[in-house]
């Protein structure tokens, strides 16, 4: 894509008795929308705060445009942050909030006002310019917070779970606002979230973190189709994970023996050897169901446990004779063509190429 703007070089962060970030080595590219995603406590917010200068790395370097930032104070950096709690100044009006960063930078009164109004207009909240913050709705406050950071015209914008306090319908709308903004302005967005749907919907690349380390970096599509390891596979998407031992190796496939039966997997990047333990993943939307045993190398006989409807998608939860849980995802209209009354007798199948072997890390 483009040149690296930010480089994390062997960065670690220790707090007194616990390690928040074990070792970070990655880069953030200019002009990209990067999401850092992971469960609570994985270190994603700490990483963002280190970039903003609110935490100092215990070891390692953070470089912005080639310059080492470790000793640069937070107010000397150009890394405006959109806070999870929004952190708007309650004693200032919306416009005064937006002007704040410019005021700190010594911009004169008239110019401050002009730029602030321009951005409030851009965020479609110009009419609220002189209002008290407490009178604004959640969505309006969100836009003030964005305007406040963007008016600084920074190279890089940091966002810490900014949509977590919004109602569900607003979240979708704001996601569109953010992606459009980023594309239009061309600045780098670094977006921290615990929500997979947010990260995958908006980002060019996603960094998945777990327990202070990077589990995988890639485009949403790559991660979804080819999770690098068990942690990512479980965290992302609806995946079926099966584990067993390698019984037989062929040119580009292998046969793996699991308690639920024998299955064929493609052998691509990961090198396998006979007798080795291996896990593989089949995405729930790549599994087919049938009422009678289908042809094919990969089948499983299950009974239906439950169904979950989300919008037009339905996820079926099934269980085989050995008690292993399977998930199948399809459109609701596809489901209606099946008669699931005989729910004890459902056959699952998938293509060998749909499976993906995991790294044993």
């Amino acid at each position, binding site marked *: 894509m483009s040149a690296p703007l930010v480089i994390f070089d062997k960065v670690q962060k220790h707090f007194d008795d616990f390690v928040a970030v074990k070792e970070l080595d990655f880069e953030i590219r200019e002009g990209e929308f990067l999401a850092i995603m992971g469960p609570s406590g994985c270190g994603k917010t700490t990483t963002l705060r280190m970039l*903003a*200068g*609110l935490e100092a790395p215990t070891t390692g370097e953070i470089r912005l445009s080639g310059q080492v930032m470790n000793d640069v*104070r*937070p*107010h000397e950096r150009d*890394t*405006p*942050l959109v*806070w*999870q*709690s929004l*952190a708007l*100044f*309650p*004693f200032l009006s919306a416009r005064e909030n937006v002007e*704040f*960063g410019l*005021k*700190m*930078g010594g911009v004169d009164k008239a110019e401050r006002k002009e730029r602030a109004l321009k951005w409030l207009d851009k965020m479609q909240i110009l009419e609220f310019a002189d209002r*008290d913050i*407490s*009178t604004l709705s959640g969505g309006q406050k969100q836009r003030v917070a964005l305007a*406040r*950071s963007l008016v*600084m015209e920074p190279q890089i914008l940091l966002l810490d779970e900014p949509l977590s306090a919004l109602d569900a319908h607003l979240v979708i709308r704001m996601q569109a606002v953010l992606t459009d903004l980023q594309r239009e302005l061309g600045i780098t967005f670094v977006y921290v979230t615990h929500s997979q749907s947010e990260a995958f919907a908006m980002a060019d690349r996603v960094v998945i973190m777990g327990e202070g380390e990077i589990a995988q970096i890639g485009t949403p599509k790559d991660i979804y189709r080819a999770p690098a390891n068990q942690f990512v596979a479980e965290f992302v998407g609806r995946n079926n994970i099966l584990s067993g031992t390698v019984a037989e190796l062929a040119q580009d496939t292998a046969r793996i023996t699991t308690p639920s039966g024998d299955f064929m997997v493609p052998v691509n990047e990961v090198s396998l050897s006979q007798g080795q333990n291996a896990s593989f993943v089949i995405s729930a939307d790549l599994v087919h169901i049938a009422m009678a045993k289908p042809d094919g190398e990969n089948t499983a006989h299950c009974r239906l446990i439950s169904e979950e409807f989300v919008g037009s998608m339905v996820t079926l939860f099934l269980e085989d004779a050995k008690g292993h849980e399977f998930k199948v995802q399809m459109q609701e209209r596809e489901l209606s063509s099946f008669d699931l009354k005989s729910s004890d007798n459902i056959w699952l199948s998938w293509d060998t190429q749909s499976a993906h072997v995991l790294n044993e890390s």
Partner: protein
Amino acid sequence: MNQGRTLNVLLTLYVGLIFAFVFAPIIFSLIFSFNSQRFPTIPLGSFSTEWYQKILSDADVWEAALNSLIVSCSTAIIATFLGFCTAYSDYRYNFRFKGPYLALILLPPTIPLIIMALAMLAWFSKIGMSGQIYSIIIAHSVLTAPFAMAVIRLRLNQMDPDLEAAAWNLGGSEWATMRHVIIPFCKPAIASGLFLTAAVSFDEFAVSWFVSGLNKTLPVIILEIVQGNIDPQVNAIGTFVFLISMTLVVLAQIFFASRQLKSIRA
């Protein structure tokens, strides 16, 4: 449910009684200050402003009133400043000996005033600072700073924990952030602290009595009158003193609760 209602009536009466007990001396003092009799009792004598005229023409009273004014204003400023410094340090920093640090400001109110009065008298005499107006100011600032600190600390609790960092993030240095964010945010509590410490200082008599020497404050004058014979002038002075301290305390409370008043932005 009849029991419930009778109980409620009884309880309301009881609360009324308690309030009557608490406010009775204040109200009586007010009534008797306009009473013509020398010794206040019922039946009341005639309405008279004699006692007010007396105190308003007494030079000693005016001087003491002026002293009280100077002392409480100065005390308010110093105590609120000290309270702010401590509240902010407690809010923002964790450091060794933080416990003893907080104890340092919070202990004085737990020590009986008469003991503080003795200790201050002795110490100020030793270091040659006794008997002056500033002696009282210093002593009062020690006694009232905890109130200012408590009020401001409570206000800081209401601040979004990210607010300070948000200001740094937008380019404000620590000093600029203090000036443009922390202080504006704390304004109601600072005002409240000023009024509260002024009120406490204005009424304080024990330490003032010991430490002031010849520079008497109003409470000291009251003490001296009370030690003599029954003199209804005390009611007149008392009424003034009540009015002033009550106004200060009410203002302090209004500012403290002003967060709920949307119209006050600062």
